[in-house]
């Protein structure tokens, strides 16, 4: 098995009941795994099923072990590695605040256009951009904004789903 440490995206379907997030997170931290990002929301209001998406660094082997452990949790219905490289689609949203004036302000506006970011709030010397895309795209946007007055970033964390007809 590969010993290379890379980012893995793990989707977990759970019964939405009290404590379930604590169970999942507690297991991950308790067994010494790290988490880069985490998103959670109910995805089936009738059956009360939530979907948790975890981005965690690790080797193929450690992530598989983590998934095995997650599957032992009673309210966990499914857990799977849905990493981009494994035919998964990953999206994230970010709110990015830029505080600048003059040429920098104009440049940030031009770049936001290239990234298809939307302006959702503005004053004479600030913008808040809304940006969707792969985590890599958001990273790139934030990097470009740094010299242009980047003030604050809020990111949702990754959500992911498998391509094609395949269902979790």
């Amino acid at each position, binding site marked *: 098995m590969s010993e290379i440490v890379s980012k893995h995206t793990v989707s977990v379907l759970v*019964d939405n009941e*009290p*404590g379930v997030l*604590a*169970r999942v997170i*507690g*297991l991950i931290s*308790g067994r010494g795994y790290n988490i880069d990002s985490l998103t959670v929301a109910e995805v089936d209001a009738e059956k009360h099923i939530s979907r948790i998406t975890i981005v965690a660094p690790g080797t193929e082997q450690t992530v*598989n*072990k983590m*998934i*095995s*452990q*997650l*599957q*032992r*949790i*009673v*309210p966990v*219905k499914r857990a799977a590695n849905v990493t981009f490289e494994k035919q998964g689609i990953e999206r994230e949203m970010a709110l990015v605040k830029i505080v600048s004036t003059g040429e920098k302000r104009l440049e940030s506006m031009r770049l936001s256009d290239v990234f298809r970011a939307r302006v959702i709030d503005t004053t004479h010397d600030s913008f808040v951009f809304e940006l969707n895309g792969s985590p890599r795209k958001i990273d790139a946007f934030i990097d470009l904004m740094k010299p242009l007055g980047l003030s604050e970033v809020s990111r949702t964390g990754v959500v992911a789903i498998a391509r094609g007809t395949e269902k979790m």
Partner: protein
Amino acid sequence: MVNIQMTGAQMVLKAFEDHQVDTIFGYPGGAVLPIYDELAKERDTNQPIRHYLVRHEQGASHSAEGYARSSGKVGVMLVTSGPGVTNAVTGLTDAMMDSIPIVCISGQVPTHLIGTDAFQECDAVGITRPCTKHNWLVKDINDLSRILHEAFYVASSGRPGPVLVDIPKDIQFQTGTYIGPETVKHKSYRPKLKANIDQIDDALKLIADAEKPIFYTGGGVINSGNAAVQLLREFIRLTGFPITSTLQGLGAYPGDDSQFIGMLGMHGTYEANMAMNKCDLMINIGARFDDRITGKIDEFSPNSKKIHIDIDPSSINKIVKVDVPLIGDVAHVLEDSIKLWKSKVYKINKSPLKEWWKTIDKWKEKDSLKYTSDKNIIKPQHAIQRLYELTKDKDVFVTTEVGQHQMWAAQYYKFNKPNRWITSGGLGTMGFGLPAAIGAQVAHPDKLVIDIAGEASILMCIQEMSTAIQHKLPVKIFIINNQYMGMVRQWQELLHDKRYSHSYTDALPDFVKLAEAYGAKGIRVQKPNELDKAINEMIEYDGPVIFDCVVEQNENVFPMIPSGKAHNEMLLGDETVKEEISDEGKVLV
């Protein structure tokens, strides 16, 4: 079943009744008083619940385990909030590691005080989350009966395990609707019992083609129940293959049968470990490739195909990659396997199997469990062998503490029936044996129950002697007394240049007087020629006995696979310990 109104405390007892619970282990306290009050009111009814008052909640948890492990039923315990729960944590973790069904009911401070750091408040569900299969905090009286039924269901189905239901005191007093167990169904937890039949067929083809096969069976067979044990025996005899067992699996297949080649793993027999290393087909039934079994993982059975039967899908490919996974209950999978084997008229590969047995017999000639006897001092192995010889005609339940004595018991005491061998394997809990023996004795009042102990371990839950006396439970505690934490001493000898750091106990109690102080019988033996008579005296005594068997202090457990080594690199005795253990090996436990 009519839905009836009752208090939370009454619901707990009603749920016990509905789940055929007649025995619980517990310790009262402020936050469970309403439930204890119901126990008092119930005392005069026809079939009161038998409550065994322990002396420490850890004792309650291990007793519930001993009860469950020896009977196959769910073990039930009742503890109060705060320290009641935290004291139970060791036993819950122990049950988690060895997959033992336990339902723990804990009291909690009233709901309006939760989060205020109230007296004897602790975050019970938070603390026990990683050491239970599942747990619940009951916040509404009308959820209580459902949660109690779910608790019994989750504890006992699939891969069994401990669960905890935390009930605030105000909920115990409130009145609500009790729903019967038949109407409650867990919304999502449905473990798969039957394996895919095509995969079973794939496995049978491998079995039919195998030239050097071995069965490697574990606690899952025993957890699956008596049917699984019978089917296992049938299947093993049908194939004529050799079988080895993990520590937890001992007794599922008769220990004195010729196809059984002994326990495997760190202190397993030479033939079992060599067979695991050299086999071309490994059939794992209800075991989990634990690190005590595999040794160095890269060199674990390098040339074999592997079949793995397990009810827990997460066990599959977790440590060792297998060729044919069969996810299901052992009894169901074996039943289907035997049926299919017979209907497809599969035949085993006879002549290579004969050669394989010859190779195994050659390994057997090493006689890896041999030791040198001594006329003047009792060898621990000899003590356990004599205990076995003098008790083997009875239906004996043996529990152990953890350490050298535990390994010697596993090596020299032969078990022919399941549930007779009760030991803390996964967690390795010193202090387990005495309360577990109490639980086993409660489940089997007329049977001989022996805790094979070490003098260090026994002191960790010695207070439970008082429980044994109060409830007239004639458990026998057979202490292999070498004055050392023997396994710690052995590792210090082999890995740390004989620097015996704090592994010698300088001020042991006089175990005979200690027994007498509790109101039990004490026996001390120091000479090999007095051993048999004293063991018989212990067996015949009607009441608890502490047997202080003073043994050779420097004896080590062999064979031993040193940490970080492969199966074929076993140490067979002191004389074979030559090369130093690598630094990589030292960090392993």
